[in-house]
């Protein structure tokens, strides 16, 4: 049997390579190489899922220690070989690039010869060619019968060409382009995927924004600013909400169940810079972002992703009580970000001498653990009308004051702020990926559902006729389609040679039909 791959066309890469360019070309034109590349990519990708990627590990530990500590020596190996950042490792990208090159080279190498071979194919084929087809038959027949078959094939929507007594009927040739269309789709898809390394196409940053704060968005190169107006955490409340009451039983079992995480925010655009270096901001719009319902602007999306479970204090209010008269002065409010240092409250004046946002006692003196107002403490002096000064150290569940003090500092309220973790994303590669994926699918469908079918008929000798059939997919359906037509026309019925000889004809590799 003849080897009908690429219609027997002379593949460029199969010619003996001359220069190094041709050698490299032949290497990438090899389907074997392509399959190896795919196998390596699949194997690599699989290994990359054994342990979590670096972006998913907790941030407390550097990756160099985390993998060893968590997974032992396997983890060390994993980290050393760069599997912790697999999908952006140079060798993984290198494999993808080589596969892309292989796809392009293979397509060029095969498409053009195949296209030419199919475009210029003769109607009259040699005996040897006819007999070399998988479906072939020989028997009595006449020109009239061939004409009749031609008409019948036309009715089956074959394109019928005649050359004297020879007939070539063909359909769905475009199905042969399926693999190349599919390769083009893949290449577009890979290009899209690789464009993601460029910030112009893909950005992804997490911004922590405290309620009331405005931050520059790094993903937008500080062009846009976001203010967190309010963070909302709603719980299912079966007692007060009828809707939620339906789930009362489940909620009782699970404890408090959050219903909604939401950040109300305002978007600003930077229009200039003030003299003191601060940005001039212009309000663009206000909106909100909920889990799975991002706030969208420009090409960016803002996702509600995290929140800080420890709210920070924005301000604290106090009042001053006179222990002798029971009179109350105040309240006054200390802004923790930008505190006033004196508060005149009629009879008494309070001075804020120091403020520890995250209070601790270190080396026997009050100090702060961090600049974040998580556990604030205040050092106040109260100037009495008598001209004396009393000192107080006030914190949460802490009040260090002299027992003899006449005035007591009392808590009068706090204002807290939650912090939202907002994921700011942009991805302009989606259209490219969708386009690539669509073309890929079109190629697959073309190749899968439209098998290229050809039927050759020609006279052989005075009274005999040769018939041959070729399809690149599903020969039995070609048989089912055309055999009845042959029978009706009274032409010889073909046989499926492959049914009898499973082994390839030894000649077929050296003699590639005729081209």
């Amino acid at each position, binding site marked *: 049997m003849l080897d009908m791959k690429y219609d027997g066309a002379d593949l460029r890469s199969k010619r003996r390579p001359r220069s190094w*360019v041709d050698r490299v070309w032949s290497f990438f034109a090899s389907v074997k190489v392509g399959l190896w590349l795919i196998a390596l990519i699949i194997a690599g990708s699989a290994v990359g899922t054994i342990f979590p990627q670096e972006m998913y590990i907790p941030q407390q530990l550097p990756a160099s220690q985390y993998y060893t500590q968590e997974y032992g020596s396997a983890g060390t190996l994993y980290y050393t070989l760069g599997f912790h950042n697999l999908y952006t490792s140079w060798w993984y990208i*290198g494999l993808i*690039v080589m596969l892309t090159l292989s796809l392009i*080279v293979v397509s060029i190498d095969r498409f053009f010869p195949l296209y030419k071979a199919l475009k210029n194919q003769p109607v009259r084929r040699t005996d040897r060619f006819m007999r070399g087809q998988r479906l072939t038959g020989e028997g009595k027949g006449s020109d009239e019968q061939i004409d009749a078959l031609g008409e019948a094939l036309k009715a089956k929507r074959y394109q019928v060409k005649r050359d004297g007594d020879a007939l070539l009927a063909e359909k769905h040739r475009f199905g042969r382009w399926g693999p190349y269309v599919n390769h083009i789709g893949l290449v577009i898809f890979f290009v899209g995927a690789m464009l993601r390394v460029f910030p112009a196409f893909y950005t992804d940053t997490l911004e922590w924004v405290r309620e009331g704060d405005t931050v520059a968005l790094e993903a937008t190169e500080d062009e846009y600013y976001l203010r967190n107006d309010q963070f909302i955490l709603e719980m299912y409340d079966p007692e007060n909400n009828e809707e939620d009451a339906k789930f009362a039983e489940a909620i009782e079992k699970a404890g408090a169940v959050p219903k909604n995480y939401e950040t109300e925010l305002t978007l600003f655009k930077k229009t200039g810079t003030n003299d003191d270096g601060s940005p001039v901001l212009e309000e663009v719009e206000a909106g909100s972002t909920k889990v799975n319902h991002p706030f969208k602007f420009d090409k960016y999306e803002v996702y509600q992703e995290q929140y800080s479970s420890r709210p920070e204090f924005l301000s604290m209010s106090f009042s001053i009580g006179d222990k002798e008269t029971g009179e109350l002065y105040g309240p006054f409010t200390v802004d923790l970000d930008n505190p006033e240092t004196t508060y005149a409250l009629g009879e008494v004046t309070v001075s804020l001498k120091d403020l520890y946002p995250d209070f601790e006692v270190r080396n026997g003196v009050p100090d702060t653990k961090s600049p974040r107002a998580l556990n604030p403490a205040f050092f106040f002096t109260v100037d009495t009308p008598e001209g004396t000064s009393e000192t107080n150290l006030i914190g949460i569940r802490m009040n260090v004051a002299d027992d003899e003090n006449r005035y007591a500092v009392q808590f009068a309220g706090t204002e807290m702020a939650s912090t939202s973790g907002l994921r700011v994303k942009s991805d302009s590669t989606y259209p490219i990926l969708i386009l690539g994926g669509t073309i890929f699918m079109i190629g697959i469908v073309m190749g899968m559902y439209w098998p290229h079918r050809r039927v050759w008929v020609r006279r052989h000798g005075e009274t005999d006729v040769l018939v041959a059939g070729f399809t690149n997919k599903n020969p039995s359906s070609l048989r089912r389609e055309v055999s009845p037509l042959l029978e009706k026309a009274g032409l010889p019925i073909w046989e499926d040679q492959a049914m009898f000889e499973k082994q390839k004809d030894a000649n077929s590799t050296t003699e590639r039909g005729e081209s």
Partner: protein
Amino acid sequence: MKKEKTGDRMQQAMAHKKKRSFWRLMVMTMVLFAGAVVVMQLIEQAGNDGRVEAGDAAPNFKLVSLDGATMLERENYEGKGLLLNFWGTFCEPCKKEMPVVQENYATLQDMGVDFWAVNVGETPLRVDNFVNGLGVELDYPILMDTRSEVEKAYGIYNLPVTFVIDEDGNVIEKYEGELTKEKLMELAEKSL
């Protein structure tokens, strides 16, 4: 006649082959070049996790000093070298290195090197109390990064950290840890 014709054909075939080789080379070079650009971009990004490191340009900033009297901008700095230090009152080594810096500040200035200490987002009240509690008067500028923007721009993680910046605004070295006299002098030399 016939010989000439075959010669012609040979030449044509050769020219065709040459052209084909050229296009093959072009296709392969273009794909590999695009791949190389992607890999380079990746390598660059791997080193750029939002933190300023040696070799980067020092981001510009404008900050007001603790006493509110002066405003300093990195780009307007006219000395030779600059040591840009980040610190917080809650950081023990920061507290220890400050008198050392003060002791050697005059020497640094003679070398043409300035030392700017950026406080990371604390209140002036706290910083004032802290500086007064040090027991030495600081001559070098304490800058107040009240909105933590400079801290974010430089990607500060550990304190104290000192960036050695040269005349052209490039970061020569990033030193994390307490400054001793020797270290301070070494960094100052490097900034020149």
